[in-house]
């Protein structure tokens, strides 16, 4: 019932109207009003003299006026996504930009180009773009539009126009130094609360992530042992006559439960694990956003503080201070609104993720129950048949 399975069935030759895609997305934000639909699929390997990398096909269908066309198809590599994210953060420092899948995966030693890795990344990239599309502000960002529509060479040349690496580094340095000084003293209560919340949330989500991975690991080990268990009953049945059928029945039940365990595991890895991981990343993003807000406030505070004793120069800088005050107010409002939105989405995501887990577990137990109950029924029927035949002379 999620969109991701259906994404794979899209092909360039199949015309799909935006309205037919409405049913295929589970995002809460007013699906009837969506006018931008994005899919990420078809990973392709590119080998050049210098490097090997993967590109993904990004298909956009839209009815928005700002777009020249109603359909676009471009290929993007991970680097391009990184660029987009940093541009969005730059333009909107106190908005919550969705997380990108990580550059490398340390645990599990998944090979960089293994099918599993590529598929996990593809799904995450798909979610990334769609979250941006759903965001009331970010969806109208110019760089976002270029990302979705520009051909490869157009994107390259556009990228070069922006502030270079050095200036970006400079920004980071300034951010670090100013955060040491400012923003915390005059921080509105609301943002202090947000900080406390994020500290705890971050802790808890990390622990949950670990727990979920641990459960997956245990389930896998259980599955491995179960694979060996059923066949022993079958082997035993070969030595027996009277109880051979019962033994084979048990073997078959165990094998069926084993297959159900596979589904059990898949449910966890396709549903809960990615969501928890995203929110681990989100918690880092949010801590960063809060810091940047503090930093913006810090700029204002330090300016005000510097002029505190210089009454004569106050008028000269009143305009500058006014601008900074505006900046702070904008940043605060943007963050507040985005925070509320984020919390709502988080609640929704968590609710659906854990409900799915519960449903998945229910299906597992229901399937196993049916298997064993039918075995039991077959055995008790036999007993009755045996008893009847014993009564006959």
């Amino acid at each position, binding site marked *: 019932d999620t969109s991701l399975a259906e994404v794979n069935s899209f092909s360039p030759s199949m015309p799909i109207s935006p309205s037919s895609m409405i049913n295929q997305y589970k995002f809460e934000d007013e699906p009837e009003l969506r006018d931008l639909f994005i899919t990420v699929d078809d990973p392709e390997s590119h080998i050049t003299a210098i490097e090997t990398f993967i590109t993904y096909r990004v298909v956009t269908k839209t009815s928005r006026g700002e777009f020249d066309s109603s359909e676009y198809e471009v290929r993007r590599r991970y680097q391009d996504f990184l660029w987009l994210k940093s541009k969005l953060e730059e333009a909107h420092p106190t908005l919550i930009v969705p997380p990108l899948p990580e550059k490398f995966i340390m645990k599990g030693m998944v090979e960089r180009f293994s099918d599993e890795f590529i598929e996990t990344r593809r799904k995450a990239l798909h979610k990334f773009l769609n979250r941006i599309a759903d965001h009331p502000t970010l969806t109208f960002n110019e760089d976002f539009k270029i990302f979705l529509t520009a051909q490869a060479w157009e994107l390259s040349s556009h990228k070069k126009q922006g502030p270079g690496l050095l200036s970006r580094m400079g920004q980071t340095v300034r951010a670090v130094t100013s955060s040491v000084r400012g923003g915390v003293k005059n921080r509105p209560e609301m943002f202090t609360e947000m900080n406390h919340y994020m500290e705890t949330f971050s802790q808890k989500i990390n622990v949950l992530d670990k727990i979920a991975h641990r*459960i997956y690991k245990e389930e896998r080990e*259980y599955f491995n*042992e179960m694979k*060996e268990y059923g066949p022993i009953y079958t082997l035993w049945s070969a030595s027996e006559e009277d109880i051979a059928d019962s033994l084979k029945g048990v073997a078959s039940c165990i094998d069926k439960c084993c297959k159900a365990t596979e589904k059990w595991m898949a449910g966890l890895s396709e549903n809960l694990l990615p969501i928890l991981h995203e929110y681990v990343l989100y918690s880092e993003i949010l801590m960063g956003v809060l810091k940047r807000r503090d930093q913006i406030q810090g700029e204002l505070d330090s300016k005000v503080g510097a002029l505190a004793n210089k009454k004569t120069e106050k008028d000269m800088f009143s305009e500058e201070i006014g601008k900074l005050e505006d900046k702070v107010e904008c940043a605060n409002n943007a963050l507040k609104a985005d925070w509320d939105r984020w919390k709502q989405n988080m609640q929704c995501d968590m*609710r659906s993720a*854990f409900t799915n887990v*519960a449903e998945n*577990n229910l299906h597992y*137990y229901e399937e196993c129950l049916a298997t064993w109950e039918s075995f039991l029924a077959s055995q008790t029927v036999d007993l009755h048949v045996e008893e009847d035949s014993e009564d006959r002379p």
Partner: protein
Amino acid sequence: MEDCLAKKMEITVSEAEKRTGRNAMNMQETYTAYLIETRAVEPQSEGQCAPVDSLWRRYSEFELLRTYLSVTYPHIVVPPLPEKRADFVWHKLSADNMDPDFVERRRIGLENFLLRVASHPVLCQDKIFYSFLTQEGGWREMVNETGFQIKADSRLKALNATFRVKNPDKRFTELKHYSDELQSVISHLLRVRARVADRLYGVYKVHGNYGRVFSEWSAIEKEMGDGLQSAGHHMDVYAASIDDILEEEEHYADQLKEYLFYAEALRAVCRKHELMQYDLEMAAQDLTSKKQQCEELATGTVRTFSLKGMTSKLFGQETPEQRETKVKILEEQIQEGEEQLKSKNLESRDFVKSAWADIERFKEQKNHDLKEALISYAVMQISMCKKGIQVWTNAKECFSKM
């Protein structure tokens, strides 16, 4: 079966107690003693219950009883004792003999052993068995006085010796093969089952970690708090439920273990038959060769090579008197041998007949018991699934309210 002891007497192993005492080498030891209670099952007047007799026995006495029965009734598939040491354990189970769970399961196993013997048509009539149940003092001496120990030693040799039977009884060969297969497959099954149990334990217990995190997380959430908190509680219930589930499964494992050890008893009967057969073949061979020797001496022809023949050729023939004495001795031996062979044949035929009767009885018992065990295993799985459904239905409701 109508006359078997089990119908006349209620037998239970009701308690287990740790004891300390001094062993044969006057060293202090700790052991467990088991209380055997017996009560006559007879209609009493005015609904009165017969009085309960009881005495304490330790595991080594059970072992002595079983050895005595195996030696005294070699044609019977003697019920096995529960294992001496905890085997096929998975990590949570203790391998310690003094562990209370192990002692408890052993108590049940010992009771089961006594009931098996008491319901066996032949074994239940044994006086030593009856005394085991009713006579506290002097029982060991009583057993030793039967002189079974001598037979026990030779039996042990028989079980371990390698010899080849020229004309094996096909049925017993097949049965021995079956008992080997049964032993192999059940021990494999028990090993893997223990590993499966271990892994399942891990899955359930890790879920227990959710409870605390959910609770701590719920403290910072307004709307999600209640859902998280109550879901966490259900996760705790889920994690705790595995203990009872796996404890019940141990009973299933114990049922299989009984038949693992029964396979050993079955094998022992086959080996006993093999030994008898070998004895018979040896005796027949010996008789044949003596008869030949006799004939040669009587007729003076040497048909077969013998060292004696060669030496007598080399060093001179015997006198007619010597030869006659020899013939007489041989004729006596031949007569003895023929009688022995006859009785051995009879013994063997009786053994085969009664052994096969008990084997048929055993087969029926085994098929019945194992089928029941498999059914009870299915019942356990069903119960576990139902518990899981309940917990996750509750959890789902909590999550949906987040």
